[in-house]
């Protein structure tokens, strides 16, 4: 599926740079050693005091939940409707979620609870974007 391109901004530049190197990094608070995603300019748990870093994670996760999108507001994705839209929980911290279209999984046949691993797919402007595929048994 052809996702919109990405123009990295100051906050997210490290995330997108790592994606272009096929690495998954998540923001982490040095003070409370807690991952947070989506990224923010401050730690949500340290009352804005924590120092933030980008931490590489394993790229493994589990399918937590999913829906099937039939009426998408994003123009570039509309020709691919209906499509799966799943939420992945990271093995490194199940409280951290990421979205996935689950490439290769038939529509509405999503194996909730299955193990997945990160892959990187090019978006409309070439920026690589994290996606997830089911790990075969």
């Amino acid at each position: 599926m052809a996702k919109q391109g990405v123009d990295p901004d100051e906050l997210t530049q490290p995330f997108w740079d790592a994606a272009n190197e096929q690495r998954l990094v998540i923001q982490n608070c040095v003070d409370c050693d807690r991952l947070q995603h989506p990224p923010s300019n401050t730690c949500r748990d340290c009352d804005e005091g924590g120092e933030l870093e980008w931490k590489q994670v394993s790229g493994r996760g589990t399918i937590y939940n999913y829906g099937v999108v039939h009426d998408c507001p994003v123009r570039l994705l509309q020709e691919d409707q209906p499509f799966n839209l799943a939420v992945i929980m990271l093995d490194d911290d199940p409280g951290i979620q990421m979205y996935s279209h689950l490439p290769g999984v038939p529509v509405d046949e999503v194996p909730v609870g299955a193990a997945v691993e990160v892959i990187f797919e090019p978006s409309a402007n070439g920026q690589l974007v994290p996606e997830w595929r089911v790990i075969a048994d």
Partner: protein
Amino acid sequence: MTTPTAPDAMYRNDEGLGVWEHRGKVAAVGVGHAPTSRRWDGRPETCVGAITIDALRKAIDDAGVAPDQIDGLVVVPVTTTGAFWEAGKPLPMDVIQSFNQTDDPLDGIAKLSAEWLLKNMPELTNVKFTMYGPGCMSNALNVTAQAVGDGLTHTCLVVKSWHNFEGRYYQGGANAGDALPGTPAITQLWGGPASYSTALQFAEYCRKYGKSHDMMAAFMENSRRNGLRFPEGYWAQHRPEELGPEDYLASRWIAKPANLFDNDIPIMMSGAYLFSTAERAADMKQKPVYILNHASSNTRPRSLLPTLDEVEADTARTGRKIYEGAGITADDLSFENMYDGFSLFHQFHLEGLGYRGIKFGEALDFYQTDISIEGPNPVSPSGGNVGSGRSRVWMHTDCIQQLQGRAGARQVTGVKPQVGVSGGPMPLGGNYTVWSASPD
């Protein structure tokens, strides 16, 4: 006059605050609604500013108060249903020139300031207090109740309006572009519609408790039935169509398991109320409805979407805050009017309240019992957004009208209307009001 946004201190976000210090000392009296429409037709007299003035004047008249007695105005400044004035689109100069405009040419057309309203309602000669309650009426009501209780205003109008333009919901702007900035890209590249998050929470709920989407049909039918008895509402005014189980279940998916009817229909509307001190309200035209408490939730999910665990923890917390501040228990509720737009989260609110003793996972079974306005367990007697279109206002109007005994064909008959609760929007992040026919 510069209008501030309500400070955090005006909201009751925490547990353990005790009974609200102004319990029973603030009252709602007047109600005003402008006619609804599906979209703006471009005329000056139907722009969002004009319908807001209409609703405010009706609320003033309904309360029987002279305009010069009003000293406060609380406004929700954002009016969009998801429709924005596209960059480069010519300004409607005929509309702009029909009003006393502020420095912002889209004020009164695609947004609403207190300044614009005061410039265009010359009869409001004594308004000294203005404040913004961001988001929706539920928020603005909390602000108004606290402001009246604190003595910042004694007779205060509060209003929420919505504009809706041509085009499909949320399909312009960044969603039509070829690229996104890096920060929104992290959440928006995958194209989930507005109801997606709620749909996923509902899917998890069904898996956990062994429920199914078709069990929502009873709630949807009841809500539309109540909405068709709401003469101020969109469906009653324009499309008086029942919503039977067959129609509901045959509807197309938006984000399965949320279908078209699980998504409220965006409309043009405006709703306004007149609040006052209980003392002053006693002499007004309508019976006062007393505020026993207001409560808020500002909880954020840990990551992208609230999990079911997060939802249930927070709705339970909200229920405790609602009851604690009002000095009541779930047994005191005559009816509930919690938010329903999207329909698939109404059960979260209901279970958090413990309405009629229901526990987590039981609301969809409860929907299969008698939840009508004629029965002993009325659910959403307003019909909510399902029954009358997107406003986040019907639930509050209904609480006031039920407790005043003037809900007309919607009046609950299976219970004596003494205490009601309304509010929302989301299970995480909302504002709630407890209403009572009596100040005690």
